[in-house]
């Protein structure tokens, strides 16, 4: 029998008032996988992540993390289960310093020593943050903010990382760095990543699997390589 997927989504449905934003979405993500969620504006990508992380209530369906049902637990409990969501724009708290932002990510753990060790690791991963630890996060550039956002998420020690458009507004080179770093994280610590991207080409280039959303439904899923090669698909939904 195949290994149990780390994340399973069954018939997930979410709505804003009378408007259905997600319609019976099914997904499975294997442990250590990096998968892309693609689609046009308003396809439901962000809503999918928000529903997975509990920020948005699911109308129906289930979210299973290693078999445990986490559909109805409050958003702030998800870190305890190892699912961490980096929202669009990163959600860096600009009023706090870089170090405070990072510390915040690890606060839910009890062990002081463990938190310190994590901090050292994260700072190691993102050298630009090390020199700016005591600066207000508001002074960071866009790329540094995204690093800080991912760093804060890593402080929580996630098994599954949900990333909403980490490349938004970043220069291609910076985007490349962040994507490479995701690959390295996957290799180093078996991290599973769900990556929402507008930029389908760059997302498919680093992921192994892709889901294409359209009007709240998964209209196609396949390996990233085949999605990249499928011209009809690219024209219809991905716009390149």
């Amino acid at each position, binding site marked *: 029998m195949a290994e149990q997927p780390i994340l399973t989504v069954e018939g997930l449905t979410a709505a804003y008032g009378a408007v259905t934003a997600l319609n019976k979405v099914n997904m499975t993500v294997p442990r250590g996988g990096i998968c892309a969620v693609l689609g046009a504006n308003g396809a439901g990508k962000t809503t999918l992540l928000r529903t997975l992380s509990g920020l948005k209530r699911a109308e129906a369906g289930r979210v299973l993390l290693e078999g445990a049902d986490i559909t109805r637990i409050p958003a*702030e409990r998800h870190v305890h289960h190892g699912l961490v969501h980096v929202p669009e724009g990163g959600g860096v*708290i600009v009023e706090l310093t870089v170090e405070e932002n990072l510390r915040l990510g690890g*606060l839910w753990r009890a062990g002081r020593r463990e938190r310190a060790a994590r901090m050292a690791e994260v700072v190691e991963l993102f050298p630009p943050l090390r020199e700016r630890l005591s600066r207000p996060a508001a002074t960071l550039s866009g790329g540094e903010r995204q690093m800080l956002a991912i760093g804060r998420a890593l402080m929580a020690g996630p098994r599954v990382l949900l990333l909403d458009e980490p490349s938004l507004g970043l220069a291609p080179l910076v985007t490349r760095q962040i994507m490479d770093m995701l690959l390295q994280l996957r290799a180093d610590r078996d991290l599973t990543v769900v990556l929402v991207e507008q930029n389908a080409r760059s997302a498919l280039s680093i992921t192994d699997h892709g889901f294409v959303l359209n009007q709240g439904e998964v209209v196609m899923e396949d390996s990233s390589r085949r999605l990249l090669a499928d011209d009809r698909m690219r024209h219809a939904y991905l716009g390149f």
Partner: protein
Amino acid sequence: MDQFINLTLNGLSQGAVYAALALSLVIIYQATRVVNFAQPALALISVYIAYTVSQATGSYWLGFGAALLTGLVLGAATERLLIRPVHGRSPLNAIIITLGLLLVLQGLAGMIWSNEPHSFAYPMDYRGRFSPSDWFALGSVGAAALMLFALYRFTPLGLRMRAAAFRPEAARLSGVRVGLMLTAGWAIASVIGALAGMLAAPPFIFPNVLDEVFIFAIAAAVVGGLENPFGALAGGVLLGLGMSYVSGYAGPELTTLAALAILVVVLSIRPDGLFSRPTARKV
């Protein structure tokens, strides 16, 4: 010169009271975007509890402790039971609720303890030019401000509270129980409010005893900038000093006018208050 020193010292001790009450308003405003008009009523009930406890035990300080504890409980209960249900709607809802609570609690205080003034003790000797009571006012507010600063700045709880106030959603995603942090903020604010009440009430306590102080505290908070705890402290002291000088040199009947003048002048120069950075509002 002697009169100037006198007026300065008086202004400082009076300003400390405004500063404390202003601080309690700012803590809540920062976290919930609500000006808590019930603050004087929460403080009032705390002071009445202190009065009752002191009467029963004969100890001022037992009453003092009871007041702070009452403030803590009342603040937490107000947030949890009255403000939380309207959270996420227009802040106007919460403001109306606090106004209603103010009226209800003041009425309740009159029913329980009567509308007649009771004599209420100073914490220490109040006679003389800068009495021990004045020192106590200044010292206790200063200590409260320092403790608050240390809490916000150096403790995990403080970090969570700030995160919850600035970016509730990002805080939740980091595992912060935002609701709990708001409750804690209201509780802490009400403790400081109760402290201000204990300092402001003597020599008499009656249901409207804190009204005037509260008006000046709002002015102090606005002068300092509603978003900035340091601003609230500075605004309180500035207002206390300004009113004291006007009262001493120009006549006590002009003090209220002086407060208004300070408010108008500061706001016409810095509309967001002295210590707030003007920020673009997100639309």
